[in-house]
């Protein structure tokens, strides 16, 4: 375990205790092979006893060059690669990419497609938050919640399979709309699932939120002030848990969110508990949004008549959606050819990761996973 000296601050490796003993700081490599770094994040921790004095995230172990791949795929073919960026919310990523291309070309998808996007996006948000909450509890040492969360998540993945033919990498969005119309009986199956999930949501709330050990572990852990959150560019549930009222579905409404009002969940704790609560209540909000979207679902076509080979006009654009982890933006430059000149992904996890070293400082070793889990990183999107 040779520490990477270039990433470690050498200035105070030694310190003197109260009795004059010279104690040595320990450098601990957490990851990339570690059970709770959610993939392949590597944290170089400087420990003074069990207290973290410095933390340096080292990323890049899951780099696949998605942005470069996007430059070498046509606009339609690129959508599929967005699934692999944030692999826990493919629908949201696809919406972002498809929306960026639409904005570049000046297309407005039909209303039905917008509403289908809203429904699938909110479903995806529920699955992502379920994974976030479940694995967070797993990090804190509770084994059961993650299995309950994955059980509920299966229902949505099955519905996605009926919709797009694939559970995970759905490849469902298209420039100008969606791929297939909703299958027969799909909406009633979704309704059944929502009813069941409302019950298990109550279970989550009762069993986890009131648990004394969970409260002890999370309350006051990893506090982010609203000013800090804005300064670091933190978005999504993390910013909203710090009292920053920033939700792109409201502040820069796109698609069907212009007609379906979102009530963003805001808390003022700023700690890990607040982030957990925001995620939990956003699931409830998503249920409401899906219900509203289903009731307002219009008829009509599901896609504009777009050719396979799209040639958007020359120019650049930025389009962002509120992903499950924050602002998922796509910056596209078109040179008029059928391939994007540049496709930059503004990933929420990557930006949210910046604040991690700041949060770790001064916390105990056991809190490292409690903070990291509450940030809800997906390394597929951090490294891209």
């Amino acid at each position, binding site marked *: *375990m040779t520490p990477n000296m270039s990433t470690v601050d050498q200035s105070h490796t030694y310190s003197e205790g109260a009795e004059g003993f010279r104690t040595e700081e*320990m450098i601990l490599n957490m990851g990339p092979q*570690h*059970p*709770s770094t959610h993939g392949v994040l590597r944290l170089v921790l400087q420990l003074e006893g*069990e207290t973290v004095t410095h933390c340096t995230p080292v990323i890049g172990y899951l780099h696949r060059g998605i942005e470069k791949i996007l430059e070498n795929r046509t606009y339609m073919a690129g959508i599929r690669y967005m699934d692999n960026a944030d692999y826990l919310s493919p629908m949201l990523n696809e919406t972002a990419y498809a929306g960026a291309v639409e904005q570049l*070309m*000046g*297309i*407005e998808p*039909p209303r*039905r497609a917008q509403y289908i996007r809203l429904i699938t996006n909110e479903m995806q948000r529920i699955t992502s938050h379920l994974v976030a909450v479940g694995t967070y509890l797993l990090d*804190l*040492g*509770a*084994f*059961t919640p993650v*299995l*309950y969360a994955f*059980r509920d998540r299966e229902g949505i993945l099955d519905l996605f399979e009926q919709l797009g033919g694939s559970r995970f990498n759905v490849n469902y969005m298209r420039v*100008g709309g969606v791929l297939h119309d909703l299958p027969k009986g799909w909406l009633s199956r979704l309704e059944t699932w929502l009813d069941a999930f409302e019950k298990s949501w109550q279970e989550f709330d009762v069993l986890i939120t009131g*648990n004394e*050990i969970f*409260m*002890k*572990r999370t*309350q006051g852990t990893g506090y982010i002030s609203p000013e800090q959150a804005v300064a670091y560019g933190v978005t999504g549930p993390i910013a909203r848990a710090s009292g920053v*009222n*920033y939700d792109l579905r409201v502040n820069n*409404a796109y698609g069907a969110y*212009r*007609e379906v*009002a979102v*009530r*963003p*969940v*805001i*808390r*003022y704790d700023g*700690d890990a508990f607040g982030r957990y609560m925001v995620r939990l209540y956003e699931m409830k909000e998503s249920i409401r949004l899906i219900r509203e979207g289903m009731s307002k679902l219009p*008829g*009509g*076509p599901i896609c*504009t*008549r*777009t050719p396979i080979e*799209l*040639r*958007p*006009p*020359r120019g650049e654009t930025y389009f962002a959606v509120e992903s499950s982890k924050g602002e998922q933006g796509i910056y596209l430059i078109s040179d*008029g*050819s*059928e391939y994007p000149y540049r496709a930059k992904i503004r990933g929420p996890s990557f930006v949210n990761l910046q604040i991690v070293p700041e949060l770790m400082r001064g916390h*105990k*070793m*056991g809190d*490292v*996973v*409690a903070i990291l889990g509450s940030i809800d990183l997906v390394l597929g999107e951090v490294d891209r």
Partner: protein
Amino acid sequence: MPQNLGFLIVHFVVTLVFFIALVATNAVIMVYLERKVMAYMQDRVGPLHYGPQGMLQSTLDVVKLLLKEDIRSQLTDNAIFSLAPMVFFAPVITAFVALPFSPFMTTGAIGTALILYVALSSLDIIGVFMAGWGSNSKYSLIGGLRSAAQMISYELPLMLSLVGVVMLTSILGHNGVGSISFSDIINAQLQTPWLWFILIQPLGLLIYYTCGLAETNRAPFDLPEAESELVAGYLTEYSGMRWAMFFLGEYGNMLIVSSVATVLFLGGWSGPGADLQFWQAHISANPGGIFSVADLVFNLIAVFWFLVKVYALQVVFIWVRSTLPRLRADQLMQYAWLILIPITLVNILVTSVLLLAVPQPYTLWVTGIVNWLMMFVYIFTLTRIIQASPAGKKPVWVNEPTNALGFMPSKTDNALPAGSETPKLQSPTPAR
């Protein structure tokens, strides 16, 4: 029962074989039980493929472990690394000497069983610490240090929570003198039928069980091997049979903690049918062996009840594991020193004062009722303290659309086109 040489030899052999078989099979049974019970609680099915209902799964796991390569890194301190599993496992086996599974299934002679048990259970720390140091790995070292701190801290309330029971034996014991022998403690609970000490000392059992969880490194006190923080703690560098030794030792520890709780609080081997006089009155057959059929039937029933109670307690271990998240290291120490030790001291004080002050026919009633009250007050206060901490105040959560940043768009200038007609596609610009 006749006390001749033949009897003593049979006694020795039977007891020894029973203990060894129990230690060896307990881990296998418990692993299977743990996986099945946890699967049931977690909406899964658990092991299913090998044997009926997957019963051979843990047996085959042991075979796999025996066949595995013994990997060790170059930097390990070989002597300490190899010795650690044995040092960990030896006290576990030795502690079984003190346990009375039935009047026959015990060495019986140990008058200071309680002290022996406490002493042996604290020896485990040495093995754990050796493993942490000898592995020469940072995760192992932190795990070993945590473990040493934790086990030493929880040793104190564990011991103190048992004092109440010992004091009760001075009231109920056969000669009016308190005893720390396990057999005497069980006999004291049989003086008045069904007067198990859980009825008089529930607080003692609660604290003992909490400390038992910490002693055996089980959730929610499994910090030394906290998977999500320390990979596997002091076990990180171990593999194969050496790892299995630690595993075996831990399950052995659970068995002992549960057995001692059974002996001290749940009336040991007492239960329906465990009555020697009854069987002697009804079975007169004596095939001419060392002891009679009545003895045999009685002892089998006694062992059965003992094991039923022990496994019920071990299932509670599993239940707790699948329910609770893990504490943090400093919270763990805080809990031991600031909460558990004071409450055990209060328990000792109150129990002793009541036993001396309250006149005889009411002594047990008053002591028991006060202890139950203390237990509920303890649980209630603890919950209040945690939930009333400054961080625990529930902030208001806004569920109204607000406009904090000031750029929420109005519905009119950003509305969807009316109707559901398809917008026209712009003609794509030709490539350069």
